[in-house]
Structure formats: C-alpha cells, structure tokens
C-alpha cells in the first residue's frame, strides 16, 4: 500500500510539474544583459587534443590527471555559460521570427536553430567531459574526428574562406 500511495502522489504531481516546465522556467531569463561573454579561443585551448598530449608527455601522471580534471571542469563551465547565452538569445529571437522584414525573420529562424542546436550539443557533450574528469587519461575528443576536423579547417583555409575555425587553424 505504501508503494501505491507513493506512486499516486508522484502521479498527482505530474500536471503541476508539466506546467512549471513549460511556463515557469522558460520565461525566467530574457534580458540581453544576461548574456555573458565566453572566450571561444580559451575554450578551444582547453579541449585541444595536441595540448592534452603535450601535457601527458611532459607532466608526471598524477599532475597530468589533476590538471586535466581542472581543464575539463573549466571547459564544462564555458559550455554551460554558452548554453545559458543560447537560452537568452533564443527568447530574444523567438518573437523576431514573426517580423514582417524577411531578413530579420530569416536571421531569427537561423539564430533559433543555432541556439537549440547548441543546447542539444551541450546536453550531449557535458556528460562526456565529466567522464573525462573521472578517467583523465582517456581522450575526450575522438582522435579520428579531431584529425578530420583539422583536415577540414586546412581545406577551408586553402580555399581562402574565413571561418572562426579556419582563423584559429591559420594562427596556429
């Protein structure tokens, strides 16, 4: 009977929880002042596989594990901050999607897509970083993917296209 009562109470709590999730949290942050600047270059450095390899080779194992944990913790904070910024941007862009100016409406649609994609990426990436904190020796970014990414950025640079990733590759 106790389990039945617990199940009944949990079930009764479902509709208020649904309302809270749909209405309560969504409208909590919408001011542009709440956007915090996040240094993308610093983040790139934190997750750079070459940097990680350099530290692994040059530091004692215990020090490497400790530093790698700190680096990953910082990376999580960067992503969390970018994720929160995406939420604010999403709320600012949502009404702009109804704009009568096609350029504004299109930019808003693109911004919304980017913002929700970022939040989805953050949802998938942050647990990976936590796993990396527990097992600091394990590479966080799959090497083959990282290699391919580098290859792509080089190709982009060769084509003379300017993207943030290409800029970083050229500076390196």
């Amino acid at each position, binding site marked *: 009977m106790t*389990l*039945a009562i617990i*199940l*009944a109470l949990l*079930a*009764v709590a*479902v*509709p208020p*929880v*649904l*309302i809270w*999730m*749909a209405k309560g*949290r*969504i409208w909590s942050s919408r001011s*542009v002042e709440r*956007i915090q600047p996040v240094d*993308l270059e610093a983040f*790139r450095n934190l*997750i750079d596989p070459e940097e990680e390899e350099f530290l692994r080779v040059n530091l004692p194992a215990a020090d490497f594990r400790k530093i790698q944990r700190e680096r990953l913790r910082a990376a999580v904070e960067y*992503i969390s901050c*970018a994720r929160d*910024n*995406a939420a604010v*941007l999403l*709320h*600012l*862009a*949502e*009404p*702009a999607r*109804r*704009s009568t*100016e096609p350029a*504004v409406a299109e*930019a*808003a*649609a693109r*911004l*919304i*897509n*980017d*913002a*929700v*994609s*970022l*939040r*989805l*990426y*953050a*949802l*998938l*990436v942050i647990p990976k970083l936590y796993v990396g904190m527990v097992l600091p020796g394990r590479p966080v*970014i799959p090497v083959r*993917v*990282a290699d391919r*990414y580098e290859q792509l950025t080089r190709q982009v640079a060769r084509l003379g296209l300017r*993207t*943030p*990733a290409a800029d970083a590759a050229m500076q390196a």
Partner: protein
Amino acid sequence: MGYREKRYILCPVVHMRFTALLWHILWFARVALLPVLLAVVLRRKFYQRFPVFSAYTGWSAFAGIAFVVMNYSPAFSGKQYFEGMVIDSVVATGIGIGVIYEVLRAHLRSHAALDAAGKTAFRWVSVLLLALGILLAWLLPSRAPYMPMSMYQVLQRTMETVQAGLLLFLFSYCAYLRVPWRSQEFGIALGLGILVSAGVAGLAIRSQIDTGVLNVSTDIQTIFTEGAYLGSVCVWLIYILAAEETKEPIPRSLPKHDLESWNQELGRFL
C-alpha cells in the same frame, strides 16, 4: 476508465449514495462534453494539424457514449461491459502514445536536428518506461479478487505510467532546449497529462482497495478520475478555442552572437 458494475441500472437515482451520484454526474458531463469537443475539432479543421489527436477525440466520444448505452441497456452483460473496457483501454493507449509523438513532432518541426534527436530519444525513453512499468506491475500487483479485473488494472496502470513518463520526457526535453510551446500543442499535452496521471494515481489506489464491490472508497477514486477526465476535456476545449498568443513585441534587430562557432566546436566531440 474506472470499473463500473452494472448494478446501478437496478437502483433508482434517489437510492444512490451521494458519492456515487457525484461520479455519475461527472461521468455524464464528460460524455456530453466529448462530442462538443469533437465538433469543435472538426469545425476548426484541427485534424489537419493534429490528426492523431482528432482521432483520439473521436474515439473517446464514441467510447463514452457506448459505455453509457452498455451500462444502462439490459442487452449488454457485465462481461461485455468489461470486454468493452479492455478494447477501449488498448485503443486509447495506442492513440494516446500517438498523440504524444504527434505533439513532439509538431513542436520540433522547425528544428531538424532536434527532431531527429527527439525521435530517437522518444523510442529509448518508451522502452525504459515500459521496463519501469513492468517492474511496477511486479512490485505492486492488484488485489482485486476478480482475476481479469486485476490484470486489467495492472496493465492499464502500466500503460498510463508509460504515457505519463513520455509526457514528462517531452516537457523536460523542450524545457531544456528552451523551445517555446505553442498554446494548442501545450493544451493537448497538458490535457493528456492530467488524464493519464489521474489514471495512474486512481488505479494505484484502486488496485489496492478493490474488493469487487462498489463502496464509498471506490466512489471517491472514481470521482477523482472522472473529475480529472472532465478537467482534461475542458483544458482541450479551452486551448483549441483560444487563439494563438502573440503578446511578445517584435524586435527590429537581433544581438550579435557566435553560436555557429560554438556549434562547430561542440560538434567535434560527437
């Protein structure tokens, strides 16, 4: 919904307990309101955007009237009434899960990446919830003395637990991604949430107190579930009749951002 013995056809209304009278009123109100909801759905061409929900409304309206007829017509036995309940349960559960999936698709239609991820997550969450429901069925069997009724209660509770869990997943997925709800999608999902959560709560208690005889305790449980069902129908009506909200002022420009670069960087992890 709740189990009703066909004994009330023999009792004049004046001899009914107050609690029994109350759940009858709620039952009849719900049965009367469902065809109104169906008419609104058809008149507003709601079936073009939400065909599964429209089918759910149609089925509920039909089943509601059918059960009233079966309850009061001497042509139908208690066994046939019970068989009708089983059929209704199977159909309503199937369409109910379809409604949740339809709301998910409608909600994420404009976000291709989220739509694909949402569909995959929906399947996995369904499997996990089914496992949870089976575990609950094992931990919390029904005490109803009549074996088919006992099985029905446990199966119905399991299916409603799955639906309530899917709705929680849907709302939490959208809340995390900050995808704003359109009022009609929200109304459909909320109405279904009220209905299935009341069903789980009612059946969790009913499966433990059912002695095979209708009494004040079972009446109170039925009042709760019938009240919730009536509430869901009202929620659906209100949200379908209400126009989509457009309160937000439209900004003339958007702030600068580097979301694309962030997405490129985070995409490297996956």
